[in-house]
């Protein structure tokens, strides 16, 4: 579903989607109105300037007098002062409106994302969501400020000029206005074509970046196959297409610009012709003629700008649509008002009402299907996990091993039946309460940019240095930290990039143990790390699970032989369960998996044993 949305470039909303944005514009309504009003005044002044020239010609020059020149200058400077001030305020307001509304939208969408369910994150890629939060908000901010101001500014200038001309000499005015419909039609025609071409250019552009990426990441393959020339030819074809399309767009743009300025001169020619005759006949003063000349030259470009602003309004609709869809997505997992009343929500927990969590978990007649799937992956599933039990879940990659864990963590809720925590339905208490009692270590450990210490404190912000050091020692991560040049204050880089996978894993174990959770979930690593680290991690896991209810998603069966119960998952369903020995004796699917892995591990360890 979302894949298609990503490619959709155009939607149509009533009133360009502005009604959906009204709640966000409301706090700034005074600023928006002031900006618009001042925009009107600014363009009003632009209409006044030619009148000064008119007065100079018709009065001072025609009468050969300088009487009243000081007042003239004073008035001019006054008008200039007003215009400059107004334009300063309206521009700076536009900037503020753009950024503040953008900021509010960012905050709102980010906060909303903190409460959305996992199904949302499974269905939408990080890149897609990030684009909504970062760029849609920016474009919308730009629309309600600059596009709005551009429209107001140019429209009021256009209207003002027309009124002013009509007042000065309505016959001549009507003749000049003949050009306006022509300019409008031309603008709309060209703008339409340009929008289409620009879209195409963006597409080819991303293709070119992709080609470069492929040319570099695929260099080894290209060389071994000796297809450099073919790749080059293909690339040249794309880059040629880019050139042709861009030149096509340039042709339209150049033609557009030329026509608009030609229209201005056409209007000027009309003024010279009809106005010249009027002046010659003594029906109009030369100064007035000069005003008409200025207006004629100045009124075509605003038409072009108005059309451009409208076209950008049309294009922003898709951003409005995507962002408001994000904001209106309702989380699948939601605490009831009563629960929030008692336990607080994610941002404002009422920790004083939280009961301690013991760690008994029970699946009671649970049936479950994923919100985006049609098939039940659990049907009438029952399992009691008393406090301190170690549950292992095994199966091939993609078999659906995470389902049970997702239910325990209440990342998803059962379609039917209940998950009981300490004998009570999980839904009776808040998500945050449960999550605060769960330690979760991911297959691909995720650290946040910042220092080692900040990362360790993530699960328990108020931990003391002794507690931190203790946790680190428990998982044998002290060696890792000792190796870093700044110890606990070393930066880990974006997503922990500066550390190796093994190091990241050890730190995320330490982070989990520091939080001292009652329930422990481990999504075991698949990546093979060096044997020393592997041993360390194995020990860390054992020390972590002691005395806690734990769920381990295991890829390497050798690590979970001691588990209290092993659940074997295939095609999303639990097909076998029991202890390691029971399952081996069954000679079923687990047995096959185990034999296969055993051999592979033997093959690898054969070399290490040498």
């Amino acid at each position: 579903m979302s894949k298609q949305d990503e490619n959709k470039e155009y939607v149509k909303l009533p009133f360009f989607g502005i009604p959906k944005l009204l709640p966000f514009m409301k706090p700034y309504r005074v600023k928006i109105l002031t900006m618009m009003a001042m925009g009107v005044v600014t363009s009003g002044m632009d209409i006044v300037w030619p009148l000064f020239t008119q007065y100079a010609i018709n009065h001072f020059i025609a009468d050969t007098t300088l009487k009243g020149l000081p007042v003239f200058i004073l008035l001019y400077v006054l008008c200039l002062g007003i215009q400059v001030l107004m334009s300063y305020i309206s521009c700076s307001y536009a900037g503020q409106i753009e950024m503040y509304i953008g900021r509010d939208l960012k905050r709102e969408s980010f906060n909303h994302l903190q409460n959305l369910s996992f199904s949302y994150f499974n269905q939408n890629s990080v890149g897609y969501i990030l684009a909504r939060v970062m760029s849609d908000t920016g474009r919308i901010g730009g629309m309600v400020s600059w596009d709005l101001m551009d429209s107001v500014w140019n429209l009021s200038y256009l209207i003002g000029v027309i009124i002013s001309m009509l007042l000065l000499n309505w016959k001549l005015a009507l003749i000049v206005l003949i050009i306006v419909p022509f300019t409008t039609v031309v603008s709309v025609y060209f703008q339409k074509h340009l929008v289409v071409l620009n879209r195409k250019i963006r597409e080819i552009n991303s293709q070119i970046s992709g080609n470069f990426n492929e040319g570099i990441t695929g260099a080894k393959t290209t060389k071994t196959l000796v297809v450099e020339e073919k790749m080059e030819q293909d690339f040249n074809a794309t880059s040629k297409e880019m050139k042709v399309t861009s030149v096509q767009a340039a042709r339209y743009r150049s033609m557009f610009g030329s026509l608009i300025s030609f229209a201005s001169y056409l209007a000027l020619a009309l003024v010279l012709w009809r106005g010249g005759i009027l002046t010659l006949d003594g029906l109009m003063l030369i100064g007035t003629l000069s005003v008409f000349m200025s207006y004629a030259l100045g009124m075509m470009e605003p038409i072009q700008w108005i059309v451009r602003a409208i076209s950008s309004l049309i294009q922003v609709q898709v951003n409005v649509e995507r962002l408001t869809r994000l904001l209106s997505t309702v989380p699948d997992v939601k605490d009831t008002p009563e629960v929030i009343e008692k336990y607080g929500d994610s941002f404002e927990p009422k920790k004083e009402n939280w009961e301690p969590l013991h760690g008994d978990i029970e699946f009671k007649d649970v049936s479950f299907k994923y919100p985006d799937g049609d098939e039940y992956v659990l049907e009438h599933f029952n399992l009691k996990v008393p406090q301190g039990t170690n549950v292992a879940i095994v199966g091939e990659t993609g078999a659906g091993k995470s389902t049970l864990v997702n239910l325990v963590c209440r990342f998803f809720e059962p379609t039917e039946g209940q998950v009981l925590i300490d004998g009570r339905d999980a839904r009776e208490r808040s998500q945050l309460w449960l999550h605060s009692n769960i330690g979760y270590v991911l297959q691909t450990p995720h650290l946040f940019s910042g220092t080692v210490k900040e990362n360790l404190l993530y699960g328990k912000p108020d931990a003391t240095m002794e507690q931190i050091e203790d946790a680190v020692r428990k998982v044998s991560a002290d060696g890792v930290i000792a190796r870093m040049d700044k110890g606990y204050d070393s930066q880990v880089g974006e997503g922990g990039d500066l550390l190796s996978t093994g190091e990241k894993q050890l730190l995320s174990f330490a982070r989990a143990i520091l939080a001292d959770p009652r329930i422990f979930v481990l999504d075991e690593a698949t990546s093979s790390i060096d044997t020393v680290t592997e041993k360390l991690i194995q020990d860390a896991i054992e020390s972590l699970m002691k005395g806690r209810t734990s769920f381990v998603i295991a890829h390497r069966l050798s690590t979970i032989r001691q588990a209290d119960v092993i659940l074997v998952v295939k095609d999303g369903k639990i097909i076998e369960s029991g202890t390691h020995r029971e399952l081996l004796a069954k000679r079923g699917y687990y047995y096959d998996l185990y034999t296969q892995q055993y051999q592979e591990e033997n093959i690898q360890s054969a070399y290490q044993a040498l």
Partner: protein
Amino acid sequence: MSNKQKNQAVQYKRLSMVSYFLHGSVHFFVLSILSSFIVTLSEMFMPQVVRFMVDNVLGADPSQEVNTVGKVMLSWGGLDYLKARIWLFAVVLVVIALVAAVFRYTVNLMNNKGAQTLMERMRNVLFAHIQKLPFAWHMQNKTGDIIQRCTSDVDRICVFISEQLVSLVRIVILVIMSLTFMYSMNIKLAIFATFSLPVVVLYSMYFHNKIGSRFGECDVQEGVLSAIAQENLTGVRVVRAFGREKFEKDRFEAQNEKYAGLWVRLMNLMALFWSSGDFISGLQVMLVLVFGTVLCVRGEISTGTFIAFISYNSMLTWPVRALGRVISEMSKAGISIDRIIYIMNSPIEQDKPGAAEADMHGDIEYSHVSFGYEENIPVVEDVSFKIKAGTTFGILGGTGSGKSTLMLLLDRLYGLKPDQGEITVGGVNIEDIKAEWLRRNIGIVLQEPFLFSRTIAENIGITQHNMPIEKVRRAAKIAAVDDSITQFAKGYDTIVGERGVTLSGGQKQRTAIARMLTQEAPIMIFDDSLSAVDAETDAAIRHALKENLSGATVILISHRVTTLMGADQILVLDKGRVAELGTHEELLNIENGIYHKIYDMQMKMPEEEEVKQNE
């Protein structure tokens, strides 16, 4: 070398790089500038038409001096003739406007054509150069950085040349022309119109420098904010599992606030720049207006001249302000050029002079080959062995034993220095064989195969122009991937790779094998190419290969004994050195030999150990 000389050298390098890229597009830019000369000239004539009309035709005072335009028009039939035909003025104006419009179109079109041609050339040259750079270079440089150089930096250089450089020339033409016209009409008033120009240029440069640095701050902050959002999204499970939503919210909010604040500061600066710019040019217009009026009243200039002056003056306002911007932004392009020079100056792979297209059907011989990717960290050491033409040769070794490296050396993806030993094919040192020839005659299936973003048929048939689909399918059948492909909705036309369907590891490997088979090379290397394929398919593929590869020299690399058992010769590699060499039987007969031990361990079944445990 002094600093100044160094600087000159850098500038010279940049200039010669730019002129190299400009090859083929420079005439567009020249045409654009020439056309803009005509546009500006015709725009200069318009106020003269108005001036003649106001002064000599509409004005009551016939004593006024007649300008060039007027003289031409008067020659058509005198003043009364023109007075009766005012429309002639409109026609003259439209004709001039038409000329201006046609050339304005040429200005923009030529400029854009130039820019696009330049861009196309830069892209193509860069892409081709990158393709030819040695593999070691690719390993040393970060992909993201190179892509950025090839896209953003190329863009910036094009914008610099097509917009900034060209508009600089155009603005200078415009300024010179209007000043010429103004000074020829009245020196006193022209001085008033001129004196604010340097002020505006300097002032606008000052602002743009400041705006530029604030832009930088905003950019950095945007990166920070975006990184927080991204980390939050990728780490959503960690955030939830630790119940840290509030922390994340506060953190994002703080940076979001800072981001908006920085932008508002920048916007305020821009608003100040625009409005104060308006103020300066407003004053300038007023000066011309007031002093023009005074001169007019004193009779020193005519009304028509006055109106023309105002027109010229207003033509100058915007371009002069843009000038400041252009100048302040020029420095940025230099850095982009340097970043491109870095790529262009990296030496490409080159064959030795006299490199030949040797016969590749001979024996392959490694003699005393030592090699490491980094200095003093050898990956293979003093390796010598011989592969008889037409036989199957197995190489066994654990992770990091140097198996793959030996193959990369054979394909010359990394070159051997004279003191690192040599590899010969049919007695010819591979250093003396053309790289293209060598690689075309060696088919390699890499450990982690890479498929291009195109259809499966195109991927398999990539080594040959318009390969017939029958040949593609034949190769796919041998590699046991035909069935999987035909099961896709679009079959062989399914697009794979980054922007298409994701294939499983095994499908990828088999597609890569098929691709390699179409090369029909006399030497074929399978670098652990069946690791993601199940045992049955593995056997089926090996069987099909055996039937179809008669005559080719085959090198199999694996850490599984079962894969290599059937080879004519097996080399056991241990920590970069040759440990054992012989047939399967010979190696098994070595008591306490590595091969023997590995064979035993790999053939062992789990039950035995389980039984032991249970006892």
